[in-house]
């Protein structure tokens, strides 16, 4: 027992622990009253004072960038890449966009306008006016998409001339919130975050708002306030996947009759819900098609679920994996059963999916780059800090990948690698 190792030593031990607690507590109380954690190095934050998301104002003009040595108003060099959606002067109604599919969103976007962008930035990455320090918290890096986002962000930071602090939250919103608290303390100039939990991130967003630190979110939080969002048009992703399947079905002589199974996550995820809406809408015009939803998390879950589905739905004509784990599980279940007559479409551009398209097991996928979103986040953040005008929502592009363009798509999404090398095992 701890208690029995000698009275004096025990006391020392307790005293030491007590001191440690005090060491943690006391200094915390003393200076904190005077300490304002807002970044001292922050430039005069032009956006923070702007009016919030009221649709009627175009708030950016309201403030001028008081950067001393720069008389001309800063320019956003990326504007030529933008295709505006709706009124550039109005804050995009993202909450309504989510509301259409039954997702409760209460996000406040501080910048007006929404744009669609191409996969590749044709314009140069903006250069930072000062050596900004930017924190980037990524939800996870345990798969290729997460890792690529992190690597791209690092490269983009170098390109833009900013210092990047990174945090890998691994799906733990509390860890992400803690990292952000630390950045506030360190006085970062801006934070880019990909939320782990869409509502739990509000705590961090509130703290950033209170500290006057600009935020760009990659993927939309459902609560809280951000300066700008970089998101995929997930409804469009679903639509593209649906159209790929529809076209493939029409190309056969089966007729549009029977069931289509799609597999998604077992809980409500805004991206999943929007993708599902896009997909289902494509088939709403075919009254004889029945859509069946199944759920799972890991590829194994989806493998098992689809194996069952093939038995339960003998009239199955098509299937759709809403995200990569679903497709990968479903594809392997299909191969194991030798069912080649079921047409499968997908979202995501994981390498096994692209190989499946090449092999003819998958009719096509609705793909998007893992590189572009990171670059657009950096562009938004640096432009914002430079005092340039930025759009409040950036939708990055969706590409339909089929057998015809799969090799180009592979080279595009995985620069420096080819599908052929991958299939021969030369690259990972």
């Amino acid at each position, binding site marked *: *027992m*701890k*208690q029995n*190792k000698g009275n004096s*030593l025990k006391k020392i*031990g*307790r005293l*030491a*622990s007590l001191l*440690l*607690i005090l*060491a*943690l*507590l006391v*200094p*915390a*109380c*003393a*200076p*904190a*009253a005077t*300490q304002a*954690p807002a970044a001292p190095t922050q430039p005069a934050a032009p956006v923070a004072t702007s009016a919030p998301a009221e649709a009627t104002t175009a708030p950016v003009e309201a403030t001028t960038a008081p950067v001393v040595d720069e008389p001309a108003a800063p320019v956003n060099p990326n504007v030529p890449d933008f295709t505006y959606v709706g009124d550039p002067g109005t804050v995009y109604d993202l909450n309504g966009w989510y509301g259409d599919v039954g997702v*409760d969103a*209460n996000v406040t976007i501080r910048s007006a306008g929404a744009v669609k962008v191409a996969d590749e930035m044709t314009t140069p990455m903006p250069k930072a006016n000062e050596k900004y320090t930017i924190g980037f918290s990524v939800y*996870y*890096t*345990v798969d290729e998409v997460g890792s690529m986002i*992190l690597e791209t962000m690092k490269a983009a930071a170098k390109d833009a001339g900013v210092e990047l*602090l*990174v*945090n*890998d*939250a*691994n799906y*733990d*919103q*509390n*860890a992400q*919130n*803690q*990292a952000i*608290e*630390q950045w506030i*303390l*360190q006085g970062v100039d801006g934070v880019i975050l990909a939320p782990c*939990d*869409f*509502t*739990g991130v*509000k*705590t961090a967003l*509130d*703290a950033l708002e209170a500290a006057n630190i600009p935020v760009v979110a990659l993927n939309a939080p459902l*609560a809280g306030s951000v300066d700008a969002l970089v998101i995929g048009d997930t409804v469009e992703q679903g639509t593209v996947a649906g159209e790929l399947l529809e076209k493939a079905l029409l190309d056969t002589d089966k007729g549009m009759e029977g069931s289509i199974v799609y597999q998604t*996550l*077992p*809980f*409500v995820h805004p991206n999943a819900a929007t993708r599902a809406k896009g997909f289902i809408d494509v088939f709403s015009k075919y009254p004889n098609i029945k859509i069946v939803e199944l759920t799972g998390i890991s590829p194994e879950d989806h493998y098992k679920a689809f194996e069952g589905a093939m038995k339960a739905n003998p009239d199955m004509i098509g299937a759709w994996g809403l995200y990569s784990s679903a497709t990968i599980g479903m594809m392997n279940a299909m191969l194991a059963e030798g069912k080649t007559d079921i047409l499968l479409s997908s979202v995501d551009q994981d390498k096994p999916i692209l190989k499946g398209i090449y092999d003819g097991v998958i009719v096509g996928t609705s793909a998007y780059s893992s590189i572009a979103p990171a670059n657009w986040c950096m562009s938004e953040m640096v432009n914002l800090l430079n005092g340039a005008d930025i759009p409040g929502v950036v939708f990055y592009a969706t590409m339909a990948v089929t057998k015809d363009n799969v090799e180009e798509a592979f080279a595009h999404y995985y620069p420096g690698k080819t599908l052929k090398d991958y299939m021969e095992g030369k690259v990972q």
Partner: protein
Amino acid sequence: MQTQANPVQTPKTTFMKLIIKYRTIMILLVLVVIFTSLKPVFIHPSNLLSIMKNMSYVLIAGLGMTFIITLGGLDLSVGSIAAFVGVGFAMLVRGGLMPAIPAGLLVMLAALFLGFFNGFVSVKGKIEPFLVTLATMNIFRGLALTLTTGRPVPIVIPYFANLFGNGRVFGIIPTPVIISMVVFAVSWFLFTHTKFGFYVRSIGGNPEAARVAGIDISLVKIAAYTLSGLYAFISGLILAALMNSGLPGAGTDLALDSISGVILGGTAISGGVGSIWGTLGGCLIIAALNSGMALLGAQFHVQILVKGLVIILAVLMDNAFKSRQK
């Protein structure tokens, strides 16, 4: 024998002995020194408070777990109970079904019942607590997911988040820190100065001797698991307040994190030997690691690697300590 002091002790062995004896504090100090030298902001008071805030719900679950592990048991279901609590509370107050206080009490009773269920099934069914709580971990999580159909449920009471999550006492100390310190003090008292704590240690040390001495083993075990449900309730409230919502997926790592904290604190997984102070130290180690690694921008891959190594190191030191004691 321990009572006879060895007259020829070199200063070196004495030093090693001290290090091993106060291994928890030593590891903590080493971490503080390393992280501070790499990132001075680590030692900043606000960061230290942030560490303690983020530790709070793990510490609370860990304090409950200290009783359970000292008893020779294990409770894997605390994370699921915590999720159930958050979700249940959020749903009760959101639908306007109930005012906050009755809702809180109702959810607390439910959490107590879930803990009781663990203990009752394990004792009466004579099933290893590991197996029972492995099963209920899934059952309770399933309950939380079923109730919400997987959706996060926002908590509509504005002061709730302040009271249990992001509020600060005197504008400085986060409320979860205060709550966890109160729970810590109560736990310490319960563990060292009450019959219940004494029974827990006796049963964990030698159930047969406790039985012959007339201690009601079944009752104490069931009570301990019920208490663990209460700790999970407090932990769950804080989690929900920090997240502003009841998340059916909350606390997935809570059981393992709190067990790690307890083990780091020197409580023996075989039972009988436990320390509330140790659990505080162990949880601080984990929290300091989390914070330091985040400051360094380490990827998750590295984070878990280092965490695992520290646990092995602590357990090795523990064994060294025990073999020296003999």
